[in-house]
């Protein structure tokens, strides 16, 4: 799994102890820092555990809320497929996916759910290919919904399964920290190149949703990050703004223009802004200690 790796409990508590000493002096002798923490260990470690716990709880809440909307919108989309209402299905496709794209790292941590929901042609063996992109191909390339009823049903039940699983999924601090970067990696790997939505060219919806999901995580961790490294936090914040500004001209109401309307220099600028944001964002790991 991409980002789901558990730190041993002992390591986490040690990290939390260390991060309790937010002197801002990065050269501080670790031994001294640890000693300081010992002095007020109870208060410091509890408050920091609470900090992460709070961020994690809030993130779970966010994930559940996104999943609820995802199931609702996917139900409308799959209903349109089964009604053979191609135009309605097309209009619901990209917006429904945005709820998923915002929380993709969680789905990736849940076994086969991500490939079942979101695999593109070639990502899995063709006999196992199902999910959104299979329906995307039917709608835009084949221009028919015929024979897609089972795929639609499967997609909806996969969405519901995701919703059920996020209730209890184990979310660790490390998942939050790396998850934000993973979301941007998703963008650089496939969305910014137009490879994700190869039939519908709705890549910018996914792009925007991945960035929103990353920003949500950043916002949840921002108080701690500010305390630990204010400059890094400011840097990340500014680059989110820069990227949002790059994306803004392509947004019309709640919709985004087709990827095909992007000029070469647009793609490159978006990609470079994305990398410029992802680099400092990947430094959020500093919250987890050395």
């Amino acid at each position, binding site marked *: 799994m991409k980002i789901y790796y558990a730190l041993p409990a002992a390591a986490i508590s040690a990290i939390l102890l260390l991060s309790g000493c937010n002197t801002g002096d990065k050269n501080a002798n670790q031994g001294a820092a640890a000693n300081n923490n010992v002095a007020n260990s109870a208060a410091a470690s509890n408050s920091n555990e609470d900090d992460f716990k709070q961020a994690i709880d809030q993130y779970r809440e966010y994930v559940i809320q996104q999943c609820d909307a995802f199931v609702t919108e996917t139900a409308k989309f799959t209903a349109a497929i089964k009604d053979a209402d191609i135009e309605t299905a097309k209009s619901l496709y990209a917006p429904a996916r945005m709820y998923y794209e915002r929380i993709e790292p969680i789905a990736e941590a849940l076994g086969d759910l991500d490939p079942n929901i979101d695999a593109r042609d070639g990502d899995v063996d063709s006999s196992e290919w199902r999910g959104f992109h299979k329906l995307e191909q039917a709608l835009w390339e084949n221009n028919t919904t015929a024979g897609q009823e089972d795929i639609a049903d499967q997609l909806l039940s996969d969405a519901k399964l995701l919703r059920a699983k996020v209730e209890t999924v184990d979310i660790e601090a490390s998942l939050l920290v790396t998850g934000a970067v993973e979301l941007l*990696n998703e963008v650089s790997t496939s969305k910014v190149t137009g490879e994700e939505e190869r039939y519908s060219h709705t890549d910018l919806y996914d792009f925007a949703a991945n960035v929103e999901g990353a920003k949500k995580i950043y916002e949840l961790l921002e108080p701690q990050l500010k305390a630990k490294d204010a400059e890094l936090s400011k840097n990340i914040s500014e680059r989110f703004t820069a990227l949002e500004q790059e994306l803004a001209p392509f947004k019309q109401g709640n919709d985004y223009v087709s990827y095909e309307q992007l000029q070469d220099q647009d793609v490159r600028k978006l990609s470079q802004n994305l990398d410029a944001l992802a680099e400092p964002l*990947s430094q959020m790991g500093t919250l987890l200690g050395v």
Partner: protein
Amino acid sequence: MSNHEPGMEPNSSNIRSNQDAASPAQGLLSKKISRREVLKYAGIGGIGLLLGGSGGYGLLAAQEKLSPSSKKNHDRVASMEQIPFYDQHQAGIITPAQNFLCFASFDLTTNSLSEVRKLFQLWTESASLMTSGQMLGNTNNSQNLPPSDTGEAAGLTTSKLTITFGVGPSFFDSRYGLSSKKPASFDELPSFRGDALLPEWCGGDIGVQVCADDMQVAFHAVRNLARIARGTAVMRWMQEGFQRSSTADPSGGTPRNLLGFKDGTGNPDTHDKQAMNEIVWARADNGANWMQGGSYMVARRIRMRIEIWDRSPLSDQEQTFGRYRDSGAPIGSKDEFAPLDLEAKDSSGKPLIPLNSHSRLAHTDGIKMLRRAYSYTGGIDAKTGQLDAGLFFICYQKDIQKQFISMQQKLAASDKLNEYIVHVGSAVFACFPGVRQGGYIGDTLF
């Protein structure tokens, strides 16, 4: 460093002449002159006395005269080392990897088998000349003609140049009447999960792997082979490759790939003849009689998602490879060459070397092949502005189906490294057995 130390010149007296025997195509390449001599004698008439041969033995004679304590001399000798072109097997396969690669894939434009044969004869002679540091052709000083050797390697040592030739599956289509000679099950690779192959980096009728300790020497060879081929074959794609040089790492440790990890730790020992026979050299029953002593090559252009890798935490990187970045040792071990302990578990009972880690997957089943990969960069991806860089993977084996394909199917299905790499180019070539003096590349086939 003086050019006039005794024993250091590749003088013609200790280079065997095999000119007559090795000249199936008369004329074009008949007069031979060492590249290091050409500058000294350029413009002087009557250079017939300087004719050299193309043997690989000049070095040995030169080396004996050296003071072993002279480090500088040793460095120089290393760069002058000649790898014999005529041998039981083609050079460039079990030859220790030189610093640089220039790989060319060609498509034939002729429909005549005799023209193809002639091309291979010309290539044989020019390859034997270039690998022994000779100038090509005899019109290098004529004012009225373009020089027969393009000249950029004039004055340069042989730099361990090797040139390795093979033919792709398309070579055996209907054009030359050789369909029946196609080795059994020798085809382009099946598509693997996650492949994103670009046609401009795939296939080819002929593959030529050129390696040398100097990029200019390597490029010179490819360029001149392409020049000789004009009218008979055209280049389909070309890839330059590099790795840390022997100057940067005199110890010759395992090179690191562009992800910063040691790459090739598990490679078989090329000095182990038996292992090479089991892993690398084809027998007649590995597909075709004419491939006895040859080897099947797979080339894959594997782009690395550099920017994404660079923002991945070290723990992720090490879990991806199943090895430590610093030492190259398997997770849980200290020594780079320690065997992978696939049973080892951490305190929570999870495997120390993750199930989907690259080294674990590449290790299981005991499939072996000889890897000979180079790093590459193609500048930046014009579309995204990201680095276009990665690994130009080359491996040699006796049976592509049982070796590369079996392993790659497993890696493509579950290797954690797949998050950071994408295969964009692919080719396979049946690399001929070695050429004997008087023979030519592919003579066992034609």
